[in-house]
């Protein structure tokens, strides 16, 4: 598993695409977090509103992740299927789940690097909080990044599963983008469900929305239900990924 992990991580960091993704992710987070999301909320950008919080930054993450992370996970199986290296992997004396876990951990580690690339923002926010006489909200920052990691990992798992169903990287990217974007935008459908099925269905749909769980986490209210839900998506997607690969073996 560690060999797979190292191989995948090295492949990502050794390619131009990996570094473009790192830079693009950091840029998108700053632009959305400082200008787009705050304007949507209060009509003023982050600097004008003068709120020394990272709510808008974390609020931008689900949307950025839904666009950027499919580009990471689409590489999971597409190249192996196309180049024939999957046949080699399949014949190695290791279980499918170890291969899947190795790749998943590598992509999640890459996500960790992407998030590390945005660390300048919390450092500056915390220092500004301290100089403004407030207690630095370190807990909120750590919780927010943990939420980002958990949510991002679930998107990667979904992307890997979709990638295992198709040999085309582009098809995997588009399908994952639609799936992850749908999970983020899912909450918009809640009103429709209310009219049709009452509050229970609305509550279920609300729960399914990954963004709904992320809002309190971004505000420092670390609810475990969000992490459990992200973990559930991840586990289910990884299990189905293993089964999809095993099906290829059996087919």
């Amino acid at each position, binding site marked *: 598993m560690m060999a797979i992990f190292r191989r995948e991580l090295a492949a990502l960091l050794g390619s*131009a695409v990996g*570094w473009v993704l*790192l*830079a693009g992710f*950091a*840029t998108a987070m*700053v*632009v959305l977090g*400082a200008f787009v999301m705050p304007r949507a909320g*209060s009509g*003023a950008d982050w*600097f*004008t509103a*003068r*709120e*020394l919080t990272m*709510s808008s930054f974390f609020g931008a993450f689900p949307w950025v992740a839904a666009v950027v992370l499919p580009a990471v996970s689409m590489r999971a199986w597409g190249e192996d299927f196309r180049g024939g290296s999957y046949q080699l992997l399949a014949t190695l004396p290791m279980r499918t789940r170890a291969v899947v876990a190795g790749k998943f951990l590598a992509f999640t580690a890459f996500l960790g690097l992407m998030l590390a*690339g*945005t660390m*300048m*923002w919390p450092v*500056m926010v915390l220092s*500004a*909080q301290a100089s*403004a*006489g*407030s*207690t*630095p*909200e*370190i*807990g*909120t920052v750590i*919780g927010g990044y943990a939420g980002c990691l958990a949510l991002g990992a679930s998107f990667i798992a979904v992307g890997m599963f979709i990638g295992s169903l198709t040999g085309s990287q582009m098809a995997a990217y588009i399908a994952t983008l639609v799936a992850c974007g749908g999970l983020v935008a899912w909450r918009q459908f*809640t*009103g*429709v*469900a*209310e009219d049709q099925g*009452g*509050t229970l269905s609305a*509550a279920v749909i*609300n*729960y399914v929305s990954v963004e709904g769980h992320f809002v*309190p986490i971004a*505000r*420092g*209210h*670390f*609810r*475990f239900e969000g992490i*459990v*839900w992200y973990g559930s998506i991840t*586990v*289910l997607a990884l*299990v189905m990924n293993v*089964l999809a690969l*095993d*099906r290829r073996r*059996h087919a």
Partner: protein
Amino acid sequence: MSGRPRYRAFLRHAVLAVLATVAVLAAVNVAVWHAAPAFDLTANHRHSVSPGTVRALSGMAWPMTATFYVSRERPPSTADLKRDVSAKLAAIAASVPGQFQFAGARAVVDVESTSVAEGELARLGVKPLTVTTPNGTVRYFAAVRLESVGLGEPAVVQVETPERVEYEIATLALKARIGRAEPPTPEAKLAAAGGGLSITYVGGSRITGPGDDGRLPVAWAHLEKEAEELFVRIRAANPEIGARIDTDPASPLRTGLPINGTVYSHFVLVHGGRRTARIDSVTSMEGMFGLLARTAWELTLPRRKVGVFHCGDSPAFRPELHDAEARRIYLNWSPEGRLMRMLEQLGHEPVEVRATAEMGITTEIAALVVPRPSGLTPIEEYELRAYMAAGGNMLLFHGEWHIPLIDRALALNPQAQIIGELFMAGEPAGLLQVRHAGNTLSGYLAGLGLETGAGIAVSVPESLPARVLGPSRRTTSLHTAEPSLYPARAGLVPVASGVVPPHPLVQDVTALPLRGASPLILKPERLGELGLEVAELLVLPPGSLLLALDASRDGASLQYAAGGSGDGWFPETLNQGKREPEQVDAGGLPVAVMVRGQFPFDVNEAPPVDAGAGVKLSAPGNRFVRSPGQLAVVASPDALEHLDSEGGDVAGLPRSGPLVGDVYRTSEGAIRRMVANVVDSFVFGEELIEVRQSLLPTPRRVTPWSNDERMLWLGLNLGLVPAVAVLVWIGMALRRRRRPA
């Protein structure tokens, strides 16, 4: 086994595996959703039960019970409301066991289909809420009903957020604690009355006219004897009050008149020096102990009324508003009018307070807000001083200079891109309309050790183009009336910031716009002599300018001349022809302070004569009871002024409830928080402030970001990672090239 059956077996296994995984994950999710475990990671624990709430509930004499009524059918945005509010109420109950009980959430049936349920809710005082969604208007119930002996009538709190529910509960608990329940016996009532109360017994008189009644001396002696017995009981029940019984038959207040051969006596109870109650025409002491005890207890109950001081000069303000419609609007939106509405929204009982020979400031006023005192009569000043010395709590917006039009007076060039183009070509000089306010409380404050600096602080905007598009020039797209939100467009309105570390009363006040603020000069020696404690609340941030005025102070305006360059861009000359201007960096100077302690007052000082009424009041003398008071001074008489030169409202009153964080970003929000915090701390104590602050989003930067800071921030965030990525990639490419094929 052939391939197909093996594949089928695999598929069966796969489907079972997926189903089992889904079942396990669903069970885990349902369990976690119900348990709702959560960590509050915020620095001030704003998602947890506030320590202030715990203290407020712990201090209640009787426990409080909460029942949550919530509709099954609710708007989508409230899908988690039942769970979250129930969790909050359960958390409060767990924090103060025994003092707060959560009776559970009662599901309310669909209000559209069952009028019976709605009728029952109406009986309980639960009103429906309406929310407009893209699919139409949704009507639903979500309210917490709170019951407690200490509350008297049950209170119903409409539920919007769990935090708001907590705030309302804490507020009610504090109010209930202040409104103490009546002790059962007269002795207990007297004991609960505490100190600070004096009782004056005014003996009766007898008529010496025709038909002299010989029984009167006997009745007189009997009444005196009964009174003495009464005093013994009072001394036993409350020695402190007992020591302050004054039997004064020769008092000028002696008004007992014998009618038909009857002797009358009177009792005068005085608390806090000026809060009085009388029991007149006492012919027998039977039942008098109970009546006196109850009166004494009621007299010493904490006061809740909040007064807004209307000085006699108030209607004369804003003389430039010639238009009748503008004057009518001004009556509604004057600082006094705004304050009255603001205080009502904050849950106080606002009272219009005037000080005349006939009507003084009673100590029933728990807190007094005095906006822009100017042209004070000697009686008004006397009453304000006496109120403070008798334990009054006053929030005073004070200053020597009124600049109501500071954001309109300077005609600025909206097209200006450089400093030299700032002023309009045809208007090289202009008039900053400043009015000297005579007869303020400056003398009184100076006597306390708080001198008002001679000067007007104006802000230094961050961005010139943004500045010239400020409120001084109404443009269709860029006009804004929110100096806090758009500081660079605030024209000349200075913005005060909190001290470091922040004072509890202004911890959540981001930036207070202060028109024409003058700095306060503290005299520690004088304050020390009087034993007054002083704390700075707000200071002018670095970068503001202090423009010293001419010492004569007789000018009705400040004249400026445009021009200059570099740092000298601001009006070069002030009070032209009289004196060169002084431009001083005013950063760090206090503009709002809080003073606590016993305020001085000469008990033998007779009230001034009201020339108009010809009334001469006597000095309060020994009946005046001193008590420590609190005085918050905000050195900006026009901080509450919100009208422009045409009488238009530049900052509409927000539709906000008591949780003033709703409008925390606006200038109006900053002023409301300041007023709310100070007045609430006067009336309810600082616990309420703590609760409010713990529920507000935090933190915010006091001073606006400068362009340099923005560029540095964006540069580091946007440029660093891509730069590192490019460098690493180049390094890797070079390494690969050097490697042998």
